[in-house]
Protein backbone atom coordinates (compact mmCIF):
# COMPACT_ATOMS: atom_id res chain seq x y z
CA UNK A 1 0.00 0.00 0.00
CA UNK A 2 1.45 3.34 -0.99
CA UNK A 3 0.67 6.13 1.42
CA UNK A 4 1.18 9.76 0.66
CA UNK A 5 3.52 11.50 3.10
CA UNK A 6 0.58 13.40 4.60
CA UNK A 7 -1.41 10.23 5.26
CA UNK A 8 1.62 8.60 6.89
CA UNK A 9 2.05 11.58 9.18
CA UNK A 10 -1.58 11.42 10.27
CA UNK A 11 -1.39 7.70 10.99
CA UNK A 12 1.79 7.97 13.04
CA UNK A 13 0.32 10.87 15.00
CA UNK A 14 -2.72 8.70 15.75
CA UNK A 15 -0.37 5.91 16.80
CA UNK A 16 1.39 8.09 19.32
CA UNK A 17 -1.94 9.36 20.62
CA UNK A 18 -3.07 5.78 21.25
CA UNK A 19 0.24 4.87 22.86
CA UNK A 20 -0.08 7.65 25.39
CA UNK A 21 -3.77 6.96 25.92
CA UNK A 22 -3.00 3.51 27.25
CA UNK A 23 -0.65 4.70 29.93
CA UNK A 24 -2.29 8.03 30.73
CA UNK A 25 -4.73 6.73 33.36
CA UNK A 26 -1.91 4.95 35.18
CA UNK A 27 0.32 8.00 35.17
CA UNK A 28 -2.45 10.35 36.23
CA UNK A 29 -3.50 8.07 39.06
CA UNK A 30 0.07 7.67 40.26
CA UNK A 31 0.69 11.39 40.10
CA UNK A 32 -2.45 12.31 42.04
CA UNK A 33 -2.33 9.52 44.61
CA UNK A 34 1.38 9.00 45.14
CA UNK A 35 3.50 11.86 43.85
CA UNK A 36 1.41 14.79 45.03
CA UNK A 37 0.84 13.53 48.61
CA UNK A 38 4.52 12.62 48.85
CA UNK A 39 5.47 16.13 47.86
CA UNK A 40 2.92 17.52 50.32
CA UNK A 41 4.45 15.39 53.05
CA UNK A 42 7.91 16.58 52.09
CA UNK A 43 6.80 20.17 52.52
CA UNK A 44 5.36 19.26 55.91
CA UNK A 45 8.79 18.17 57.09
CA UNK A 46 9.85 21.81 57.08
CA UNK A 47 6.96 22.85 59.29
CA UNK A 48 5.77 22.45 62.82
CA UNK A 49 2.16 21.24 63.02
CA UNK A 50 0.61 19.92 66.23
CA UNK A 51 -2.67 20.13 68.14
CA UNK A 52 -3.84 23.58 68.91
CA UNK A 53 -2.39 24.96 65.70
CA UNK A 54 -4.66 26.08 62.88
CA UNK A 55 -2.07 25.61 60.19
CA UNK A 56 1.53 24.49 59.88
CA UNK A 57 4.29 26.91 60.82
CA UNK A 58 7.51 27.06 58.85
CA UNK A 59 10.59 26.11 60.87
CA UNK A 60 13.17 25.29 58.24
CA UNK A 61 15.39 22.31 58.96
CA UNK A 62 14.64 22.10 62.67
CA UNK A 63 12.78 18.79 62.32
CA UNK A 64 15.74 17.22 60.57
CA UNK A 65 18.08 18.40 63.30
CA UNK A 66 15.75 16.88 65.88
CA UNK A 67 16.11 13.50 64.19
CA UNK A 68 19.64 13.15 65.49
CA UNK A 69 18.80 13.84 69.11
CA UNK A 70 15.72 11.63 69.13
CA UNK A 71 16.90 8.60 71.06
CA UNK A 72 13.56 6.87 70.66
CA UNK A 73 13.87 7.19 66.90
CA UNK A 74 17.39 5.80 66.94
CA UNK A 75 16.12 2.97 69.13
CA UNK A 76 13.37 2.21 66.63
CA UNK A 77 15.94 2.27 63.84
CA UNK A 78 18.11 -0.17 65.76
CA UNK A 79 15.13 -2.45 66.46
CA UNK A 80 14.12 -2.25 62.83
CA UNK A 81 17.54 -3.38 61.66
CA UNK A 82 17.74 -6.19 64.20
CA UNK A 83 14.21 -7.33 63.35
CA UNK A 84 14.92 -7.26 59.61
CA UNK A 85 18.28 -9.00 59.73
CA UNK A 86 17.32 -11.82 62.07
CA UNK A 87 13.98 -12.48 60.38
CA UNK A 88 15.59 -12.39 56.96
CA UNK A 89 18.41 -14.81 57.82
CA UNK A 90 16.07 -17.29 59.49
CA UNK A 91 13.45 -17.07 56.76
CA UNK A 92 16.15 -17.70 54.20
CA UNK A 93 17.67 -20.68 55.97
CA UNK A 94 14.35 -22.36 56.75
CA UNK A 95 12.98 -21.58 53.30
CA UNK A 96 16.09 -22.89 51.60
CA UNK A 97 16.14 -26.04 53.71
CA UNK A 98 12.47 -26.76 53.09
CA UNK A 99 12.83 -26.12 49.36
CA UNK A 100 15.77 -28.52 49.14
CA UNK A 101 13.75 -31.16 50.97
CA UNK A 102 10.61 -30.76 48.90
CA UNK A 103 12.54 -30.58 45.66
CA UNK A 104 13.50 -34.21 46.14
CA UNK A 105 9.91 -35.31 46.56
CA UNK A 106 7.77 -36.66 43.79
CA UNK A 107 4.42 -37.26 45.41
CA UNK A 108 2.67 -34.83 47.73
CA UNK A 109 4.56 -31.81 46.52
CA UNK A 110 1.47 -29.88 45.42
CA UNK A 111 -0.31 -30.52 48.73
CA UNK A 112 2.64 -29.11 50.62
CA UNK A 113 2.75 -26.07 48.37
CA UNK A 114 -0.99 -25.51 48.81
CA UNK A 115 -0.63 -25.60 52.58
CA UNK A 116 2.44 -23.41 52.67
CA UNK A 117 0.89 -20.65 50.58
CA UNK A 118 -1.82 -20.09 53.19
CA UNK A 119 0.10 -18.17 55.90
CA UNK A 120 1.02 -15.51 53.36
CA UNK A 121 -2.63 -14.80 52.70
CA UNK A 122 -3.66 -14.49 56.34
CA UNK A 123 -4.52 -10.95 57.41
CA UNK A 124 -1.47 -9.66 59.32
CA UNK A 125 -3.81 -8.24 61.96
CA UNK A 126 -5.12 -11.75 62.58
CA UNK A 127 -1.58 -13.13 62.63
CA UNK A 128 -0.77 -10.73 65.44
CA UNK A 129 -3.98 -11.56 67.31
CA UNK A 130 -3.68 -15.34 67.13
CA UNK A 131 -0.01 -15.34 68.08
CA UNK A 132 -0.99 -13.16 71.01
CA UNK A 133 -3.08 -16.10 72.19
CA UNK A 134 -0.40 -18.66 71.39
CA UNK A 135 2.24 -16.68 73.28
CA UNK A 136 0.29 -16.58 76.54
CA UNK A 137 2.86 -17.52 79.22
CA UNK A 138 0.59 -19.95 81.07
CA UNK A 139 -2.16 -21.01 78.71
CA UNK A 140 -0.57 -20.56 75.33
CA UNK A 141 0.34 -23.31 72.90
CA UNK A 142 3.95 -22.13 72.46
CA UNK A 143 4.88 -22.53 76.10
CA UNK A 144 2.88 -25.74 76.30
CA UNK A 145 4.99 -27.23 73.54
CA UNK A 146 8.19 -25.89 75.09
CA UNK A 147 7.43 -27.34 78.52
CA UNK A 148 6.47 -30.65 76.96
CA UNK A 149 9.89 -30.73 75.32
CA UNK A 150 11.52 -29.98 78.65
CA UNK A 151 12.22 -26.24 78.33
CA UNK A 152 10.88 -23.43 80.44
CA UNK A 153 8.73 -21.06 78.45
CA UNK A 154 9.56 -17.34 78.81
CA UNK A 155 7.05 -14.57 79.42
CA UNK A 156 7.09 -13.68 75.73
CA UNK A 157 4.98 -10.56 75.18
CA UNK A 158 5.30 -9.37 78.76
CA UNK A 159 9.08 -9.56 78.64
CA UNK A 160 11.25 -6.82 77.14
CA UNK A 161 13.76 -9.50 76.23
CA UNK A 162 11.42 -11.89 74.45
CA UNK A 163 8.85 -9.58 72.82
CA UNK A 164 10.97 -8.86 69.76
CA UNK A 165 11.84 -12.54 69.21
CA UNK A 166 8.12 -13.25 69.50
CA UNK A 167 7.45 -10.70 66.77
CA UNK A 168 10.24 -12.13 64.62
CA UNK A 169 8.84 -15.64 64.97
CA UNK A 170 5.39 -14.52 63.90
CA UNK A 171 6.87 -13.00 60.76
CA UNK A 172 8.95 -16.10 60.09
CA UNK A 173 5.74 -18.11 60.34
CA UNK A 174 3.99 -15.92 57.84
CA UNK A 175 6.66 -15.27 55.24
CA UNK A 176 9.11 -18.16 55.11
CA UNK A 177 6.77 -19.80 52.58
CA UNK A 178 7.54 -17.03 50.11
CA UNK A 179 11.27 -17.75 50.17
CA UNK A 180 10.44 -21.44 50.03
CA UNK A 181 8.26 -21.03 46.94
CA UNK A 182 10.72 -18.88 45.05
CA UNK A 183 13.67 -21.17 45.76
CA UNK A 184 11.63 -24.27 44.97
CA UNK A 185 10.49 -22.78 41.68
CA UNK A 186 14.09 -21.99 40.93
CA UNK A 187 15.32 -25.47 41.84
CA UNK A 188 12.71 -27.07 39.62
CA UNK A 189 13.73 -24.93 36.69
CA UNK A 190 17.41 -25.77 36.94
CA UNK A 191 18.85 -27.78 34.07
CA UNK A 192 19.75 -31.38 34.88
CA UNK A 193 22.92 -31.65 32.83
CA UNK A 194 25.39 -29.84 35.09
CA UNK A 195 24.32 -32.02 38.02
CA UNK A 196 24.61 -35.24 36.05
CA UNK A 197 28.03 -34.22 34.79
CA UNK A 198 29.13 -33.32 38.30
CA UNK A 199 27.90 -36.64 39.64
CA UNK A 200 29.90 -38.49 37.02
CA UNK A 201 32.93 -36.48 38.01
CA UNK A 202 32.38 -37.64 41.59
CA UNK A 203 31.17 -34.42 43.21
CA UNK A 204 29.59 -34.63 46.65
CA UNK A 205 26.13 -33.28 47.39
CA UNK A 206 27.57 -30.28 49.15
CA UNK A 207 29.89 -29.50 46.24
CA UNK A 208 27.04 -29.78 43.78
CA UNK A 209 24.94 -27.44 45.86
CA UNK A 210 27.68 -24.97 46.52
CA UNK A 211 29.22 -24.79 43.09
CA UNK A 212 26.28 -25.34 40.76
CA UNK A 213 22.97 -24.87 42.52
CA UNK A 214 23.70 -21.79 44.54
CA UNK A 215 25.34 -19.66 41.84
CA UNK A 216 22.48 -20.38 39.45
CA UNK A 217 19.89 -19.54 42.09
CA UNK A 218 21.66 -16.46 43.34
CA UNK A 219 19.82 -13.83 41.26
CA UNK A 220 16.35 -14.84 42.34
CA UNK A 221 17.40 -15.38 45.93
CA UNK A 222 18.86 -11.90 46.06
CA UNK A 223 15.72 -10.39 44.56
CA UNK A 224 13.35 -12.09 46.96
CA UNK A 225 15.57 -11.36 49.98
CA UNK A 226 15.76 -7.67 49.09
CA UNK A 227 11.99 -7.49 48.60
CA UNK A 228 11.49 -9.21 51.92
CA UNK A 229 13.94 -6.87 53.62
CA UNK A 230 11.96 -3.88 52.41
CA UNK A 231 8.71 -5.40 53.65
CA UNK A 232 10.29 -6.13 57.03
CA UNK A 233 11.36 -2.52 57.45
CA UNK A 234 7.83 -1.41 56.66
CA UNK A 235 6.20 -3.85 59.09
CA UNK A 236 3.32 -2.34 61.08
CA UNK A 237 0.19 -4.47 61.38
CA UNK A 238 1.67 -7.29 63.42
CA UNK A 239 3.35 -4.87 65.80
CA UNK A 240 0.05 -3.10 66.38
CA UNK A 241 -1.90 -6.25 67.27
CA UNK A 242 0.81 -8.44 68.77
CA UNK A 243 2.65 -6.05 71.06
CA UNK A 244 1.42 -2.50 70.54
CA UNK A 245 5.08 -1.51 70.33
CA UNK A 246 5.75 -2.83 73.79
CA UNK A 247 6.36 -3.70 76.44
CA UNK A 248 7.38 -0.06 76.69
CA UNK A 249 9.10 0.44 73.38
CA UNK A 250 10.73 -2.97 73.12
CA UNK A 251 9.14 -3.69 69.75
CA UNK A 252 8.65 -0.17 68.52
CA UNK A 253 10.06 -0.64 65.06
CA UNK A 254 10.17 2.28 62.69
CA UNK A 255 6.77 2.37 61.07
CA UNK A 256 5.12 1.98 64.43
CA UNK A 257 7.14 4.83 65.86
CA UNK A 258 6.13 7.12 62.99
CA UNK A 259 2.51 6.19 63.60
CA UNK A 260 2.90 7.01 67.27
CA UNK A 261 4.56 10.37 66.60
CA UNK A 262 1.96 11.40 64.06
CA UNK A 263 -1.25 9.97 65.48
CA UNK A 264 -0.65 9.58 69.19
CA UNK A 265 1.54 12.58 69.90
CA UNK A 266 0.11 14.53 66.95
CA UNK A 267 3.46 15.93 65.91
CA UNK A 268 2.61 16.00 62.22
CA UNK A 269 5.60 17.93 60.92
CA UNK A 270 8.11 15.87 62.86
CA UNK A 271 6.24 12.65 62.07
CA UNK A 272 6.54 13.42 58.38
CA UNK A 273 10.27 13.93 58.84
CA UNK A 274 10.65 10.56 60.56
CA UNK A 275 8.63 8.92 57.81
CA UNK A 276 11.04 10.28 55.24
CA UNK A 277 13.85 8.60 57.10
CA UNK A 278 12.04 5.30 56.59
CA UNK A 279 11.55 6.21 52.94
CA UNK A 280 15.25 6.91 52.66
CA UNK A 281 16.14 3.46 54.00
CA UNK A 282 13.75 1.80 51.58
CA UNK A 283 15.18 3.90 48.76
CA UNK A 284 18.68 2.67 49.57
CA UNK A 285 17.52 -0.94 49.43
CA UNK A 286 15.58 -0.32 46.21
CA UNK A 287 18.63 1.24 44.69
CA UNK A 288 20.64 -1.89 45.43
CA UNK A 289 17.82 -4.01 44.01
CA UNK A 290 17.64 -2.00 40.82
CA UNK A 291 21.38 -2.20 40.41
CA UNK A 292 21.46 -5.98 40.55
CA UNK A 293 18.14 -6.57 38.81
CA UNK A 294 18.98 -5.87 35.15
CA UNK A 295 22.33 -7.57 35.26
CA UNK A 296 21.10 -10.71 36.97
CA UNK A 297 17.64 -11.18 35.55
CA UNK A 298 16.58 -10.83 31.94
CA UNK A 299 13.61 -8.57 31.53
Amino acid sequence: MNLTPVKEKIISKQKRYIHILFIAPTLIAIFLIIIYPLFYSFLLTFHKFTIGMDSPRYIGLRNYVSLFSDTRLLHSLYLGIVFTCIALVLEFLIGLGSALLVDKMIRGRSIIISILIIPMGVMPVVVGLVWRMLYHPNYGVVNHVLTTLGFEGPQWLASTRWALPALILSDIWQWTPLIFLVILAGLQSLPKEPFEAAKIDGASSWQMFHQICFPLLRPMILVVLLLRAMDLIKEFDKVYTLTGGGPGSATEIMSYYVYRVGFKYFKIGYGATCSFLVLFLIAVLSFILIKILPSEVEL
Partner: protein
Amino acid sequence: MTRGEKHINKIILYVTLAIIMLIFIMPIYWVFVTSLKIPKEYFSSPPVYLPSEITFSSYIKLFQGSQTLHHLLNSLIVALITTAASVGIGSLGAYSLARFKIGGKYLAFAILGIYMFPPVTFILPFFILAQKLHLYDTRLILAIVYTGFFLSFVVWIMRGFFYEIPKELDEAAMIDGCSRIGAFLKVILPLAKPGLVATSLICFMFSWNEFLFALILTSTNAKTLPVELGGFITDKALLWGQMCAGGSFAIIPILVLILFLQKYLVRGLTFGAIK
Protein backbone atom coordinates in the same frame (compact mmCIF):
# COMPACT_ATOMS: atom_id res chain seq x y z
CA MET B 1 24.03 -45.67 50.27
CA THR B 2 22.33 -48.86 51.25
CA ARG B 3 18.67 -49.44 50.73
CA GLY B 4 18.07 -49.30 54.46
CA GLU B 5 19.82 -45.93 54.75
CA LYS B 6 17.81 -44.53 51.87
CA HIS B 7 14.64 -45.70 53.58
CA ILE B 8 15.53 -44.02 56.85
CA ASN B 9 16.44 -40.81 55.03
CA LYS B 10 13.02 -40.82 53.44
CA ILE B 11 11.31 -41.28 56.78
CA ILE B 12 13.27 -38.43 58.34
CA LEU B 13 12.39 -36.26 55.36
CA TYR B 14 8.69 -36.93 55.68
CA VAL B 15 8.65 -36.53 59.46
CA THR B 16 10.49 -33.21 59.23
CA LEU B 17 8.08 -32.00 56.59
CA ALA B 18 5.11 -33.16 58.65
CA ILE B 19 6.34 -31.15 61.62
CA ILE B 20 6.86 -28.10 59.43
CA MET B 21 3.36 -28.47 57.98
CA LEU B 22 1.94 -28.76 61.47
CA ILE B 23 3.67 -25.57 62.56
CA PHE B 24 2.34 -23.67 59.57
CA ILE B 25 -1.21 -24.90 59.99
CA MET B 26 -1.46 -24.63 63.77
CA PRO B 27 -2.22 -20.88 64.16
CA ILE B 28 -4.89 -21.02 61.46
CA TYR B 29 -6.42 -24.09 63.04
CA TRP B 30 -6.31 -22.23 66.36
CA VAL B 31 -8.34 -19.31 65.00
CA PHE B 32 -11.05 -21.59 63.68
CA VAL B 33 -11.19 -23.95 66.62
CA THR B 34 -11.23 -21.15 69.23
CA SER B 35 -14.10 -19.47 67.41
CA LEU B 36 -16.10 -22.63 68.08
CA LYS B 37 -15.05 -23.18 71.70
CA ILE B 38 -17.00 -22.48 74.85
CA PRO B 39 -15.51 -19.50 76.75
CA LYS B 40 -13.85 -21.40 79.53
CA GLU B 41 -11.81 -23.33 76.98
CA TYR B 42 -10.26 -20.26 75.32
CA PHE B 43 -7.44 -20.23 77.84
CA SER B 44 -6.60 -23.22 79.93
CA SER B 45 -3.61 -25.20 81.04
CA PRO B 46 -3.01 -27.40 79.13
CA PRO B 47 -4.48 -25.69 76.04
CA VAL B 48 -7.55 -27.22 74.52
CA TYR B 49 -6.72 -28.55 71.07
CA LEU B 50 -9.95 -30.45 70.58
CA PRO B 51 -12.95 -28.68 72.10
CA SER B 52 -15.23 -30.74 74.29
CA GLU B 53 -18.23 -29.09 72.70
CA ILE B 54 -18.78 -26.86 69.71
CA THR B 55 -20.79 -23.67 69.88
CA PHE B 56 -21.59 -20.94 67.42
CA SER B 57 -22.28 -18.40 70.15
CA SER B 58 -19.11 -16.43 69.31
CA TYR B 59 -20.35 -15.90 65.79
CA ILE B 60 -23.79 -14.92 66.96
CA LYS B 61 -22.41 -12.49 69.51
CA LEU B 62 -20.05 -11.06 66.94
CA PHE B 63 -22.86 -10.07 64.58
CA GLN B 64 -25.39 -9.05 67.19
CA GLY B 65 -25.38 -5.44 68.25
CA SER B 66 -22.19 -4.55 66.44
CA GLN B 67 -21.33 -3.25 63.04
CA THR B 68 -19.47 -6.36 61.92
CA LEU B 69 -21.68 -7.09 58.92
CA HIS B 70 -21.34 -3.46 57.84
CA HIS B 71 -17.56 -3.64 58.18
CA LEU B 72 -17.44 -6.87 56.20
CA LEU B 73 -19.43 -5.24 53.42
CA ASN B 74 -17.09 -2.26 53.46
CA SER B 75 -14.09 -4.54 53.10
CA LEU B 76 -15.76 -6.40 50.25
CA ILE B 77 -16.85 -3.31 48.34
CA VAL B 78 -13.50 -1.58 48.68
CA ALA B 79 -11.67 -4.76 47.62
CA LEU B 80 -13.84 -5.23 44.53
CA ILE B 81 -13.56 -1.62 43.38
CA THR B 82 -9.84 -1.56 44.04
CA THR B 83 -9.21 -4.79 42.16
CA ALA B 84 -11.27 -3.72 39.16
CA ALA B 85 -9.64 -0.31 38.98
CA SER B 86 -6.08 -1.49 39.59
CA VAL B 87 -6.19 -4.39 37.16
CA GLY B 88 -8.10 -2.41 34.55
CA ILE B 89 -5.95 0.70 34.58
CA GLY B 90 -2.76 -1.21 35.27
CA SER B 91 -3.18 -3.66 32.41
CA LEU B 92 -3.60 -0.81 29.96
CA GLY B 93 -0.49 0.83 31.29
CA ALA B 94 1.44 -2.45 31.26
CA TYR B 95 0.48 -3.03 27.64
CA SER B 96 1.79 0.39 26.80
CA LEU B 97 5.09 -0.32 28.50
CA ALA B 98 5.44 -3.73 26.90
CA ARG B 99 4.48 -2.83 23.35
CA PHE B 100 5.26 0.83 22.89
CA LYS B 101 8.11 0.98 25.39
CA ILE B 102 7.10 4.45 26.52
CA GLY B 103 9.62 5.93 28.87
CA GLY B 104 11.96 3.01 28.26
CA LYS B 105 13.49 1.15 31.15
CA TYR B 106 13.28 4.14 33.48
CA LEU B 107 9.54 4.59 33.58
CA ALA B 108 9.04 0.88 34.20
CA PHE B 109 11.46 0.90 37.12
CA ALA B 110 10.01 4.13 38.46
CA ILE B 111 6.58 2.57 38.54
CA LEU B 112 7.90 -0.53 40.23
CA GLY B 113 9.66 1.67 42.76
CA ILE B 114 6.34 3.05 43.90
CA TYR B 115 5.28 -0.38 45.02
CA MET B 116 8.18 -0.33 47.41
CA PHE B 117 7.38 2.99 49.09
CA PRO B 118 6.68 2.63 52.81
CA PRO B 119 3.01 3.32 53.59
CA VAL B 120 3.98 5.28 56.71
CA THR B 121 5.34 8.08 54.56
CA PHE B 122 1.80 8.55 53.27
CA ILE B 123 -0.33 8.27 56.38
CA LEU B 124 0.06 11.91 57.41
CA PRO B 125 -0.55 13.56 54.02
CA PHE B 126 -3.40 11.15 53.23
CA PHE B 127 -5.06 11.94 56.54
CA ILE B 128 -4.85 15.69 55.98
CA LEU B 129 -5.78 15.60 52.29
CA ALA B 130 -8.72 13.25 52.92
CA GLN B 131 -10.16 15.73 55.39
CA LYS B 132 -9.67 18.59 52.96
CA LEU B 133 -11.42 16.70 50.18
CA HIS B 134 -14.26 15.71 52.53
CA LEU B 135 -13.49 12.10 51.73
CA TYR B 136 -12.43 11.08 55.22
CA ASP B 137 -14.17 7.93 56.40
CA THR B 138 -15.50 6.99 52.96
CA ARG B 139 -15.04 3.76 51.06
CA LEU B 140 -14.06 5.83 48.04
CA ILE B 141 -10.93 7.26 49.59
CA LEU B 142 -9.76 3.78 50.57
CA ALA B 143 -10.35 2.47 47.06
CA ILE B 144 -8.47 5.46 45.62
CA VAL B 145 -5.51 5.05 47.94
CA TYR B 146 -5.27 1.29 47.40
CA THR B 147 -5.53 1.62 43.63
CA GLY B 148 -2.69 4.13 43.63
CA PHE B 149 -0.42 1.65 45.33
CA PHE B 150 -1.52 -1.56 43.67
CA LEU B 151 -1.29 -0.07 40.18
CA SER B 152 2.46 -0.32 40.20
CA PHE B 153 2.31 -3.98 41.18
CA VAL B 154 -0.23 -4.75 38.46
CA VAL B 155 1.78 -2.88 35.84
CA TRP B 156 4.93 -4.72 36.77
CA ILE B 157 3.43 -8.20 36.67
CA MET B 158 1.26 -7.70 33.58
CA ARG B 159 4.12 -6.13 31.68
CA GLY B 160 6.00 -9.39 32.06
CA PHE B 161 3.02 -11.35 30.78
CA PHE B 162 2.50 -9.06 27.80
CA TYR B 163 6.17 -9.39 26.85
CA GLU B 164 5.63 -13.10 26.46
CA ILE B 165 2.83 -12.66 23.97
CA PRO B 166 4.29 -12.21 20.47
CA LYS B 167 3.78 -8.81 18.90
CA GLU B 168 2.71 -10.53 15.70
CA LEU B 169 -0.61 -11.44 17.25
CA ASP B 170 -1.47 -7.78 17.83
CA GLU B 171 -0.47 -6.95 14.31
CA ALA B 172 -2.44 -9.85 12.84
CA ALA B 173 -5.55 -8.67 14.68
CA MET B 174 -5.10 -5.13 13.49
CA ILE B 175 -4.59 -6.20 9.88
CA ASP B 176 -7.87 -8.06 10.21
CA GLY B 177 -9.54 -4.75 10.97
CA CYS B 178 -9.29 -4.36 14.75
CA SER B 179 -8.28 -1.09 16.28
CA ARG B 180 -5.39 -1.14 18.75
CA ILE B 181 -7.83 -1.25 21.66
CA GLY B 182 -9.87 -3.94 19.94
CA ALA B 183 -6.78 -6.07 19.47
CA PHE B 184 -5.92 -5.54 23.12
CA LEU B 185 -9.33 -6.52 24.42
CA LYS B 186 -10.19 -9.37 22.10
CA VAL B 187 -6.85 -11.02 21.46
CA ILE B 188 -4.19 -10.08 23.99
CA LEU B 189 -6.16 -9.98 27.24
CA PRO B 190 -7.63 -13.46 26.86
CA LEU B 191 -4.12 -14.78 26.29
CA ALA B 192 -2.89 -13.04 29.41
CA LYS B 193 -5.59 -14.60 31.55
CA PRO B 194 -3.22 -16.34 34.05
CA GLY B 195 -1.58 -13.00 34.72
CA LEU B 196 -4.93 -11.26 35.10
CA VAL B 197 -6.18 -13.90 37.50
CA ALA B 198 -3.01 -13.81 39.58
CA THR B 199 -2.90 -10.02 39.83
CA SER B 200 -6.63 -9.75 40.54
CA LEU B 201 -6.32 -12.28 43.30
CA ILE B 202 -3.33 -10.52 44.82
CA CYS B 203 -4.97 -7.09 44.59
CA PHE B 204 -8.11 -8.42 46.26
CA MET B 205 -6.03 -10.01 48.97
CA PHE B 206 -3.93 -6.91 49.60
CA SER B 207 -7.05 -4.77 49.81
CA TRP B 208 -8.93 -7.21 52.05
CA ASN B 209 -6.00 -7.51 54.45
CA GLU B 210 -4.87 -3.88 54.45
CA PHE B 211 -4.78 -2.27 57.86
CA LEU B 212 -2.70 0.89 58.21
CA PHE B 213 -4.44 3.15 55.70
CA ALA B 214 -7.85 1.84 56.74
CA LEU B 215 -6.97 2.62 60.34
CA ILE B 216 -5.97 6.18 59.46
CA LEU B 217 -8.65 7.04 56.95
CA THR B 218 -11.81 5.53 58.45
CA SER B 219 -13.70 5.85 61.67
CA THR B 220 -17.28 4.52 61.69
CA ASN B 221 -18.83 4.59 58.24
CA ALA B 222 -16.14 3.06 56.14
CA LYS B 223 -14.41 0.95 58.77
CA THR B 224 -13.17 -2.30 57.34
CA LEU B 225 -12.79 -5.72 58.91
CA PRO B 226 -9.06 -5.46 59.74
CA VAL B 227 -9.64 -2.22 61.63
CA GLU B 228 -12.47 -3.77 63.58
CA LEU B 229 -10.28 -6.74 64.48
CA GLY B 230 -7.46 -4.40 65.45
CA GLY B 231 -9.87 -2.65 67.77
CA PHE B 232 -10.49 -5.87 69.69
CA ILE B 233 -7.15 -5.46 71.36
CA THR B 234 -7.74 -2.05 72.85
CA ASP B 235 -11.44 -2.02 73.68
CA LYS B 236 -12.40 -5.60 74.14
CA ALA B 237 -9.29 -7.48 75.06
CA LEU B 238 -11.29 -10.28 76.65
CA LEU B 239 -13.58 -11.27 73.80
CA TRP B 240 -11.26 -13.89 72.32
CA GLY B 241 -14.07 -16.05 70.94
CA GLN B 242 -15.59 -13.20 68.96
CA MET B 243 -12.16 -12.11 67.85
CA CYS B 244 -11.46 -15.54 66.42
CA ALA B 245 -14.89 -15.61 64.82
CA GLY B 246 -14.05 -12.31 63.13
CA GLY B 247 -10.64 -13.70 62.28
CA SER B 248 -12.28 -16.64 60.52
CA PHE B 249 -14.11 -14.23 58.27
CA ALA B 250 -10.83 -12.49 57.62
CA ILE B 251 -9.09 -15.71 56.60
CA ILE B 252 -11.73 -17.82 54.86
CA PRO B 253 -12.38 -15.73 51.72
CA ILE B 254 -8.68 -15.50 50.96
CA LEU B 255 -8.14 -19.15 51.80
CA VAL B 256 -10.86 -20.22 49.40
CA LEU B 257 -9.54 -17.96 46.65
CA ILE B 258 -5.99 -19.18 47.14
CA LEU B 259 -6.92 -22.85 47.11
CA PHE B 260 -8.95 -22.52 43.95
CA LEU B 261 -6.50 -20.32 42.11
CA GLN B 262 -3.16 -21.38 43.49
CA LYS B 263 -1.74 -22.41 40.15
CA TYR B 264 -2.08 -18.83 38.95
CA LEU B 265 -0.83 -17.47 42.24
CA VAL B 266 2.41 -19.41 42.30
CA ARG B 267 3.08 -18.36 38.74
CA GLY B 268 2.36 -14.73 39.59
CA LEU B 269 4.46 -14.65 42.75
CA THR B 270 7.53 -16.31 41.32
CA PHE B 271 7.23 -14.56 38.02
CA GLY B 272 9.16 -11.50 39.08
CA ALA B 273 12.06 -13.57 40.28
CA ILE B 274 12.68 -15.87 37.35
CA LYS B 275 12.28 -15.37 33.65
